[in-house]
């Protein structure tokens, strides 16, 4: 909502300065978003006429215009607008002018070799509207003002307020003045106007159909006959221009002015274009009309339309139609001042994707008692400016407005705000805001003003009182440093731990969007369901991610393009399994590309491989408190991993829930996304699948035992079939005698000479130690034999002699 201090002064008597005003507006909740000075610069924008155009010699879409800027001065201006043509009245900005929209200073410039002295402006460039197609077109009435400044001298700055959706009353200057006055900033000027008492008959019949979902509950109107529509008088034009609106014609300007002044949207029809009477009804599916924005709208069932015998005239409270619009030659005007239900307005506007000033106001709630005020104010002005006779007012309604009543306990104020104000002050604030206040023992009986649809219960009254008294009166109560519940639960602690644990292994933490490109998602979707976003920002962000890999691989690729070769990134965050709340999992996902020890003088460089990520996964889990000796690993992994070089990890051999996958990313994916790296390996740890440790560190630390008896180490080499897994061998040896076998290490794998082709040799180092005594040679011999026997029996291995 844009206002000026000058306009505000129509309603508010004050000697205070604009600086104080800006502060006070923000203090009472009418946030000042920006203040734009309409300085002398704006006087540079002149009314001008194009007297000749010719094609630009070097550009097809540009024209060179001769522009009459008054006092016999002709300027050559290069212009790209399609509507630039001989005879057009428009607005000219000379070099040196600052274009309001872009805030850039205009300079004499050569455009494709032709010098342009200034510029012809579009409405959007002047902040007059959003219209950026073509340059501003002024009506022929402006001809006599060629050379004069389009903007009048204005002392007042444009103050842009961000009005919250609960305050429709402040979408009119008067509402803002009322709030300011209540807060002690000036005095509200009484503008009680005499109602028009006319004897002229209202000859157009108006009817509101009583039907289900009727969006219009009251329709007031009057006829103004024999008017002469014209350009608005200077004061009115200046007023509209002062807040950046473009004057059109007196009748339209007056309805706009009343709307901005007292937040009462009106609509003016050319009464001669209405066939018989007006019927306000629900639309039928398939009905069509052309609105004042020159667009054709196809309506659905149940939209509130203003119609006549021939069909739809307009969408009630949203936009009028071209068929019944007023023009300069309009003789008889039907002025509408109605009440439309916010919900109905919103539904219709949303379905048709329409946004207008009237819609914005009606959907927030217009004062239902302002119907007559609006007719009064506008009809008088029309008569004053355009002449004509005003008819009797006709008010049709299907509902009668009743003021909302609230019983307010003044004690609630302190209970919520934490500070005190006197009852006297409470009453004064409420009365200044327009409430009717009656004392009833210890309570206040309040009637809510009709322009405040946002107020319906006691707490709303508290807000009004705190707001007007000033939020600075709220005390600071220091928080108490007391904790009754632990800050993080076990899962949150685990999240925190995994995050920092993975980062400590050389991975950069990334945060990427939860949505992704369908193409990338498909690479890593495996068997998961695709979850589409109905209204994505762009098609590349059209689905929720089924895996974090989709985003990470995309970003790894971008970083490779930036010239990085060895990269490790990870993200801990959600992946989605379905479109219902909760169908998501937290995954720690990491990717590593390139080499280890690239260009090292001391270490041999090598590609990153699956055992790098296996270490990262295992170490992370071990650090998080899981026992790696219990881990069970197999090679059943999703299709985006290299089928031979990837693994699936369970916390134990019950294989309940998958703790992690790790491995090389499938080479096909790298090929398809054209990724250039020596090697790409990754992992996924599924946080919710990690069983939370039951024992706390406290429990675990208490027990500490070790053996000081002599250790002995033995090496074994077994020849086994190639598909025998090291894990099986290790487990077999470990379980031979848990009290003696302390450690089992694979230290060599050999295939080749002296070993049958289908076999391999696995060399294993076993540490044997008793916690009860020193083992003698016999004991060791026994356990060695047992190990060999067990391994040979269980795995078909042969000890290599």
């Amino acid at each position, binding site marked *: 909502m844009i206002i000026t201090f000058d306009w505000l002064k129509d309603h508010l008597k004050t000697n205070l300065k604009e600086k104080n005003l800006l502060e006070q507006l923000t203090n009472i909740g009418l946030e000042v978003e920006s203040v734009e000075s309409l300085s002398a610069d704006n006087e540079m924008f002149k009314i001008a006429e194009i007297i000749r155009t010719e094609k630009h010699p070097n550009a097809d879409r540009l024209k060179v215009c001769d522009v009459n800027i008054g006092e016999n001065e002709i300027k050559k201006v290069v212009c790209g607008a399609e509507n630039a043509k001989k005879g057009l009245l428009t607005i000219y900005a000379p070099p040196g002018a600052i274009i309001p929209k872009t805030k850039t200073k205009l300079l004499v410039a050569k455009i494709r070799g032709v010098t342009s002295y200034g510029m012809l402006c579009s409405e959007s460039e002047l902040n007059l509207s959003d219209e950026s197609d073509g340059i501003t077109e002024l009506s022929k009435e402006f001809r006599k003002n060629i050379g004069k400044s389009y903007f009048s001298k204005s002392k007042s700055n444009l103050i842009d307020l961000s009005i919250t959706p*609960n305050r429709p009353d402040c979408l009119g200057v008067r509402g803002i003045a009322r709030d300011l006055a209540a807060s002690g900033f000036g005095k509200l000027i009484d503008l009680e106007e005499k109602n028009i008492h006319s004897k002229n008959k209202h000859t157009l019949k108006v009817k509101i159909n009583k039907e289900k979902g009727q969006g219009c509950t009251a329709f007031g109107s009057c006829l103004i006959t024999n008017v002469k529509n014209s350009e608005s008088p200077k004061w009115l034009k200046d007023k509209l221009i002062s807040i950046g609106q473009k004057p059109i014609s007196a009748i339209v300007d007056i309805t706009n002015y009343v709307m901005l002044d007292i937040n009462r949207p009106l609509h003016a029809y050319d009464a001669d274009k209405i066939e018989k009477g007006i019927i306000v009804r629900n639309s039928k599916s398939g009905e069509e009309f052309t609105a004042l924005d020159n667009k054709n709208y196809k309506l659905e069932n149940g939209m509130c339309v203003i119609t006549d015998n021939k069909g739809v005239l307009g969408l009630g409270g949203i936009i009028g139609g071209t068929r019944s619009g007023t023009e300069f030659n309009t003789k008889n005007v039907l002025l509408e001042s109605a009440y439309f239900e916010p919900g109905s307005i919103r539904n219709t506007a949303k379905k048709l994707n329409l946004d207008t000033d009237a819609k914005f106001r009606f*959907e927030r709630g217009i004062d239902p008692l302002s119907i007559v005020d609006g007719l009064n104010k506008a009809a008088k002005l029309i008569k004053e400016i355009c002449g004509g006779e005003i008819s009797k007012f006709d008010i049709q309604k299907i509902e009668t407005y009743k003021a909302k009543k609230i019983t307010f306990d003044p004690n609630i104020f302190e209970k919520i705000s934490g500070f005190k104000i006197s009852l006297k002050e409470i009453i004064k604030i409420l009365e200044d805001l327009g409430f009717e206040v009656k004392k009833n023992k210890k309570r206040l009986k309040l009637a809510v003003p009709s322009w405040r649809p946002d107020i319906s219960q006691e707490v709303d009254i508290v*807000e009004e009182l*705190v707001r007007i008294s000033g939020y600075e009166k709220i005390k600071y109560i220091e928080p108490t440093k007391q904790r009754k519940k632990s800050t993080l639960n076990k899962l949150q602690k685990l999240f925190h731990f995994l995050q920092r644990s993975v980062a400590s292994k050389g991975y950069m933490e990334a945060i990427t969007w939860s949505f992704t490109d369908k193409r990338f998602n498909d690479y890593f979707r495996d068997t998961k369901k695709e979850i589409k976003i109905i209204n994505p920002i762009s098609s590349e962000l059209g689905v929720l991610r089924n895996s974090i890999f989709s985003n990470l691989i995309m970003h790894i690729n971008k970083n490779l393009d930036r010239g*990085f070769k060895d990269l490790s990134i990870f993200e801990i965050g959600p992946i989605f399994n379905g*479109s219902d709340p909760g169908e*998501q999992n937290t995954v720690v996902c990491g990717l590593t590309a390139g080499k280890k020890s690239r260009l*090292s*003088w001391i270490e041999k460089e090598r590609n990153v491989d699956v055992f790098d990520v296996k270490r990262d996964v295992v170490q992370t889990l071990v650090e998080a408190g899981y026992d790696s000796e219990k881990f069970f690993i197999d090679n059943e992994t999703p299709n985006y991993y290299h089928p031979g070089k990837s693994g699936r990890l369970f916390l134990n051999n019950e294989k309940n829930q998958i703790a992690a996958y790790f491995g090389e990313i499938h080479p096909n994916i790298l090929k398809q996304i054209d990724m250039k790296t020596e090697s790409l390996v990754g992992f996924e740890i599924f946080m919710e699948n990690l069983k939370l440790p039951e024992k706390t560190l406290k429990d675990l630390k208490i027990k500490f035992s070790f053996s000081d008896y002599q250790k002995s180490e033995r090496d074994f080499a077994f020849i086994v079939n190639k598909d025998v897994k090291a894990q099986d061998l290790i487990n077999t040896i470990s379980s031979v005698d848990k009290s003696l076998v302390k450690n089992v290490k694979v230290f060599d794998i050999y295939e080749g000479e002296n070993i049958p082709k289908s076999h391999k040799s696995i060399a294993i180092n076993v540490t044997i130690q008793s916690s009860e005594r020193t083992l003698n040679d016999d004991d060791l011999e026994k356990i060695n034999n047992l190990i060999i026997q067990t391994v040979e029996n269980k795995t078909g291995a042969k000890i290599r002699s």
Partner: protein
Amino acid sequence: MSDLKKIKDEFLSKLSGKLDIAEINQIKSDLFGKSGLISTQFKKIGTIEESERKKFASDLNIIKGELQDLISSKINELESAEINKKLEKEKIDITLPERSFVQGKIHPVSQTIDEISSIFSEIGFSIEEGPDVENEYNNFTALNTPENHPARDMHDTFYLDEKKQKLLRTHTSPVQIRTMLKDKPPFKIIAPGRTYRSDSDQTHSPMFHQVEGLHIDKSINMGHLKGCLNYFIKEFFEVDKIKMRFRPSHFPFTEPSAEVDIGYEIKDGKIMIGEGNKWLEILGCGMVHPNVLKNVKVDPSKFQGYAFGIGIDRLAMLKYGINDLRAFFDCDYRWLNHFGFDPLDVPTNYRGLSR
């Protein structure tokens, strides 16, 4: 001259010469070996007359000690000379690079979440979470934002179904609803997390982070809200004093509602938080609307309290001088490395939030 003295003099003179380790060892065995000169003398002790035996034994021991000491010091000397000689050959260019290492980093948003959690932990808040996909009820209706409420326009919502029943949460406020439905008052929680709005330009990202705060008890009023936020902002920016402004605003789920600005100024191109005469909006808050409490079966005549929502990315930008919101999610390795934090830098109360 006694035998002992003879032996002593002879060997002292032998040991004073330049000897190598083998020669010394030979001397050692000549003296102390099984039939070495000294060992032989010891065997003689029993045959000596009783009157002289004591003196003989004592003299023998002294000589033994003297010679032994000399031998071991000679050996030490030789050994250390040998080590020194070896070290001479082992000089390397120590300025050559160390073995390579890689450094991981924690994303500034994660770090900021941990900082926020640490501050609120001190004053008794615990952390709650909720799903990214929400239903329409939790995200809007339960929060006193029924359909057709214009406030919904401020949330450009991503929907997952045509009926617009499932969506990506537009704020962390639905966690309030979930928490209150799940437990019984009092409530004192914060809920950090991802939030989504279909808005994308220089200053908006379709995904961003918020932290929700909720404190409901029997007599929590706006003074507690103001005190809590003032405490938080001071702690977060690690300053002693903060210029803070509460001003009225509107959110459907709080009444009264407020927005909070903090004072700042630009000094030498750097933003200084807490001073100056410019205002920067950093959060929205208010007293939880009785309608919201009713929706979650909490009796508004018995319980009341406040809620707030803060943009985490914005806080991180202010604190760490990050200009571009979009860069947070761009994964540029250089950016991550520059703005990221060492994983060991865990924000805690006792060692401070940041270094």
